[in-house]
């Protein structure tokens, strides 16, 4: 499978994403510079973490207008799989590819720590390989990861099963203490209604090897591989 990993000025998790996909999981991945107009033969797109355009104006606000994002929008409109991690999640919400917005953490602090995640549904290309009931341990590193959407949108997210991950404690309880940034409903990651675009604040690419303290992030990428394989098989048949 070919992954396109976007690079904006001040992306800083692009190399981690390439390393996880290529070196750890054995698939192919290449960088796509923000000025490019095409994603080439990519099967899936990763919008990586970082501080694109210095987080000027709002996180992700400027990146969304870069040429490559037009290609990503078209790719997503055609059903292509897109996952935004951390700043990538912010870019996708700013671009309107995912609903809601990410605002300043409620305690105004930058949180760099491991958190626990509950996966709400395995019915998505991003969660299908996550063992039922397994609590994931992943790192976060953000100052503006507090998920916000209005009541109407939250109701819709719940009704459509679009909430993929929620912050929880080690036992899987959705407590306020386990919520690092004040996100509504402890939301850590969501997908769009069509379920082909997802975003999350935690970093699965930084948790793909035991030596890094957790390999739980692998199951998210393995879910994407499985979804792509299913797609390829369906096309061939």
């Amino acid at each position, binding site marked *: 499978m070919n992954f396109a990993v976007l690079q904006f000025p001040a992306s800083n998790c692009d190399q981690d994403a390439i390393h996880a996909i290529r070196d750890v999981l054995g698939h192919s991945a290449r960088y796509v510079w923000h000025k490019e107009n095409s994603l080439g033969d990519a099967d899936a797109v990763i919008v990586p973490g970082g501080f694109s355009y210095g987080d000027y*104006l*709002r996180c992700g*606000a400027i990146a969304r*207008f870069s040429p490559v994002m037009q290609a990503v929008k078209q790719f997503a409109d055609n059903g292509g799989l897109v996952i935004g991690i951390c700043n990538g999640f912010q870019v996708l*919400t*700013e671009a309107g590819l995912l609903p*809601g*917005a990410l*605002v*300043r*953490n*409620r*305690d*105004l602090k930058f949180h760099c720590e491991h958190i626990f995640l509950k996966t709400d549904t395995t019915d998505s290309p991003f969660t299908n390989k996550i063992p039922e009931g397994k609590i994931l341990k992943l790192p976060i590193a953000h100052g503006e990861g*507090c998920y*916000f*959407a*209005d009541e109407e949108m939250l109701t819709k997210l719940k009704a459509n099963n679009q909430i993929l991950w929620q912050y929880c404690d080690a036992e899987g309880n959705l407590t306020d203490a386990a919520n690092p940034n*004040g996100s509504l409903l402890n939301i850590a990651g969501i997908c769009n209604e069509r379920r082909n675009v997802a975003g999350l604040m935690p970093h699965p690419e930084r948790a793909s090897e035991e030596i890094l303290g957790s390999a739980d992030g692998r199951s998210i990428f393995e879910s994407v591989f499985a979804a792509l394989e299913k797609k390829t098989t369906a096309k061939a048949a």
Partner: protein
Amino acid sequence: MKAKIIITPQKAVVDPQGKTVQSALEQMGYKGVAAVHVGKYIEIDLAPGTDKAAAQQALNDAAHKFLSNPIIEDYKLEIE
């Protein structure tokens, strides 16, 4: 001619910056502060001879699409 755009967080959005500034003001002894909202101010110098009505329309569009995020923010645009 200058365009002035004031961007403020919507009431429904938690504004921890505003709350922190408010409690600092209270600690400093300033009385009667009911609420503080921290936003952004953007000033745009318009080229000489710019048509005011056209600029108003274009900047409203830019403010809605780019300068503010309508999901979490409100804006006010003034051209003078």
